[in-house]
């Protein structure tokens, strides 16, 4: 009963945040509601006993990634989005298509999963267990990930840096 009520409260927060993200016109409001979604999802992970994932969700997602988003929104001075003809077409085609697709996926998932129930703290997700798994069974993917992150850092620096300015002015104009 406690598990169900906590699940419903945090699930309602997550869904409300997701809908608010769609409704808001200004990107900074969308970013703040996305942070609310991520915090609510961290609570859901904690309910399942996935402590490590909950901590990483708060630190990496709600912390680092969203700080990056908010920085870029402020850096580019993003204003309210304007609606154009293309967006109206996207709404007319997109909403029914999304509804049909998500209904299909939900029907398949619910039919497949049966009536199994999850207890509170069902996962033995202590950080030490995850760490053991990460550095034994998943050592190669973990190391590959570090290369990926290195490439991402270099790519971000190269892409975001200002284009080189030529020292001498051009002769022909």
């Amino acid at each position: 009963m406690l598990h169900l009520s906590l699940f419903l409260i945090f699930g309602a927060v997550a869904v409300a945040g997701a809908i608010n993200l769609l409704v808001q016109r200004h990107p900074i409001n969308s970013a703040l509601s996305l942070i609310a979604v991520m915090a609510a999802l961290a609570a859901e992970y904690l309910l399942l006993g996935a402590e490590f994932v909950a901590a990483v969700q708060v630190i990496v997602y709600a912390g680092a990634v969203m700080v990056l988003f908010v920085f870029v929104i402020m850096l580019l001075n993003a204003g309210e989005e304007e609606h154009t003809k293309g967006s109206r077409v996207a709404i007319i085609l997109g909403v029914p298509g999304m509804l049909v697709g998500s209904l299909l996926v939900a029907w398949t998932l619910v039919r497949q999963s049966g009536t199994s129930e999850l207890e509170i703290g069902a996962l033995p997700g202590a950080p030490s267990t995850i760490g053991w798994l990460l550095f034994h069974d998943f050592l190669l993917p973990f190391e590959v990930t570090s290369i990926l992150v290195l490439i991402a850092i270099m790519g971000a620096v190269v892409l975001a840096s200002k284009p080189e300015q030529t020292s001498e002015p051009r002769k022909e104009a």
Partner: protein
Amino acid sequence: MVPLSYYLILSGILFACGVLGFLIKRNIITIFMSIELMLNGVNLSFVAFAAHWHALSGQVFVFFVMVVAAAETAVGLAIIIAVYRTRETLNVDQVNLLKL
């Protein structure tokens, strides 16, 4: 006790909201945030299935998804900055050339 299907439905709702935002939003930063929302929805179903099967590897995959998402965010936002520098707009309808 919460049925597994409740978690799957919640993750499906979040994923659908992400798809909808990706389709109807015109601001390139908000579109990017919708992608993050989709990834979060998928992560929730990963953790729910991990709890269902008592398999810890599901959580390790969530960790990898988060790392890839963080890398993707860094590169994507850098691309957004580069696009804004040449075009001075964040509206995707006005960004119709791949050339910088």
